[in-house]
């Protein structure tokens, strides 16, 4: 790997050198957008918080002040969760798209979040798991098993499978797994009452401690993803070329599976199954930076929380109650999917 990439970096590529600072500078507006989305998420809600108040109570928490309580008990946990779950889902989607070379891949569409949430529901219903620090392991395991299954089905053919076939397998697998989940939930009204908000995909249900408990795992997943981007670039040339260039596609897939399980499992354990963020963020990133996995992942880390945050804010203001963010992302993301299918050549094969 390094033997090949090192001279490539030493060469002055015709377009590469001037573009790299461009991409770095291009991140600045994204950072700004992300901050705006996160700030909005702190301010907007059933009790609107003015910017001045927000700044004051963020810097000087005052437990006696109701607004401070709103900020610290509701808005800050939500916003941290948006940041973490968004980045996790965005990068998980980018990883899945890169490893499967399937532009329609997304943890939600391919059933990985459904697998993770089934595992959580089973853990809650039959194994007396109650605490997030224990049911996150169920979520990781569920995400891992489901992604292994989807990958296995997608790659089981002698010829590399088409994106559509893999998407269909994932969707059907997801349908089966959510069928199991609803069977468990329907036969157990206590769990249904507790988990039905979560099962729609929401940022509102977790305390800050739960989110922070999952943070190291998501960080590990992000790190693994960012470290494997160079190999993913090589893999994008095709399996045979990648092997010829010294990459190890199987090892790479295993590493990616681990990262996807950590990221999608972690996001699902905290926020429930949220779809389409992993589809939209990497595509947006690719539109901006082009086919370069390292930059796609980096930009996705910024773009995904932005999209998730805006969707969450939209869900809070659109009706009197609150629409769970998973519903909003589906309503934003499904048209994107349909647009992609209508426009692209994915389905022409």
């Amino acid at each position, binding site marked *: 790997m390094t033997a090949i990439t090192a001279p490539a970096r030493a060469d002055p590529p015709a377009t590469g050198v001037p573009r790299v600072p461009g991409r770095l500078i291009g991140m600045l507006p994204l950072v700004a957008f992300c901050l705006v989305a996160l700030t909005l998420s702190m301010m907007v809600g059933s009790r609107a918080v003015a910017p001045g108040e927000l700044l004051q109570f963020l810097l000087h928490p005052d437990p006696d002040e109701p607004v401070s309580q709103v900020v610290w008990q509701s808005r800050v946990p939500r916003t941290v969760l948006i940041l973490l779950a968004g980045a996790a889902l965005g990068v998980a989607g980018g990883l899945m798209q890169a490893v499967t070379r399937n532009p329609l891949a997304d943890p939600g569409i391919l059933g990985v979040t459904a697998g993770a949430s089934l595992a959580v529901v089973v853990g809650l219903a039959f194994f007396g798991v109650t605490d997030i620090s224990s049911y996150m392991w169920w979520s990781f395991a569920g995400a891992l098993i489901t992604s292994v299954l989807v990958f296995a089905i997608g790659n*089981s053919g002698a010829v590399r499978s088409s994106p559509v076939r893999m998407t269909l397998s994932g969707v059907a697998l997801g349908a089966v797994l959510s069928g199991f989940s609803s*069977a468990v939930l329907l036969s157990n009204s206590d769990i249904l009452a507790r988990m039905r908000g979560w099962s729609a995909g929401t940022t509102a249900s977790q305390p800050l401690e739960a989110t922070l408990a999952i943070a190291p795992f998501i960080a590990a997943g992000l790190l693994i993803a960012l470290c494997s981007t160079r190999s993913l670039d090589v893999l994008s040339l095709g399996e045979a070329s990648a092997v010829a260039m010294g990459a190890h596609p199987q090892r790479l897939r295993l590493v990616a599976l681990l990262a996807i399980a950590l990221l999608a499992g972690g996001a699902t354990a905290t926020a429930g199954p949220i779809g389409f963020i992993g589809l939209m963020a990497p595509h947006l990133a690719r539109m901006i930076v082009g086919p370069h996995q390292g930059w796609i992942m980096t930009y996705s880390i910024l773009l995904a929380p932005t999209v998730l945050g805006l969707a969450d804010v939209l869900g809070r203001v659109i009706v009197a109650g609150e629409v769970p963010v998973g519903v909003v992302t589906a309503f934003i993301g499904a048209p994107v999917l349909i647009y992609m299918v209508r426009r692209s050549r994915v389905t022409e094969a």
Partner: protein
Amino acid sequence: MTAERTSTGPASPRPQPTVDFGRRMYRIGPRDRPMLLLDARSVRVCAVLWAATILLAFYAITSGSAQITVSEALTALFGRGDDYTTMVVAEWRAPRVLMAILLGTCLAASGSIFQNLTGNPLGSPDIIGFQTGSFTGALIVMLVLGGGSAATMAGALTGGLVTALLVFVLSIRRGAVRGVRLIIVGIGVSAMLGSANVWIQLTATVEDAIMAGLWGAGNLSGVTWPTFLLVLTVSAAFLAAATLLARPMKLTRIGVPFATALGQKVRAVQVAAVVIGVGLTALATATVGPISFIALAAPQIARRLVHTDGLALGPTAAVGSLLLLLADVTAQRIHPDSPLPVGIVTVCIGGLYFLWLLMREGRTR
């Protein structure tokens, strides 16, 4: 009816231009102008499947929390049994069993039509998500408008039809609907509707959500004779139309240019197929809630049993009926105290079958 192997015809008494089907056929009518030609294997498979279905139906009618002998059941069905047996057999169990058989046929036929139309074994109405749209319609009626069961049926029917229309309009590009695009658009639309369903259920109380969830899982309990007769009438029309459509669809399956060259109105056939396929699924979903995987699995199982490619409506319908009845009998007997909705059993069976199908296709390819 005579059996003949048309492929081995040197010993034929008169040299006659017989069509070589390449497989055993049953013929009704004269040799040179047969009225009806039936595939021998298909006929045998159908006979075995229907026999199994009838046996299972008798088992379903006689066993359960109240044990009834076959002779008692038969006398009750002919209206000469005692009150209790008549009520259990004729009012509770018989309509449920018949409904399972009928809807199994409907769902399987619909699946067969869609799999042919999309040219993809996964392009069945439950994957494309028309049933999600039906559930949305039913939920809106049940939880938002507060309607009764007849209104719920109407809502489910409307929801399914509107969803189908939306999916088709969205997947038309340059005036043509391509199978794969249809499927992915369907997935997108059903993802949206599915999360809308979750949200509608969230706004309701837990009790209402469980009630709606049970409907949404697909439930055959509480079927009455008037409902059955209504569904029978409507589905008979659709199934007859599907039978008429089988031949033109076979031609379309060979290839659209080929069918066009032979003078077939391909577009008309496709539109008719969509209307009938959607109608059958929407009817079944409106009656008992979304039951998935019958439409997906039945045509594929039938294809493998009969060794034909494409639309084998008869065997498909037989497989569908047997599957749904089997699933319902299983669902009632897993937990006799709290019977499961049949849809959950079909999801479990169907899911396992589906994984096997994908793995197997992957290996053989």
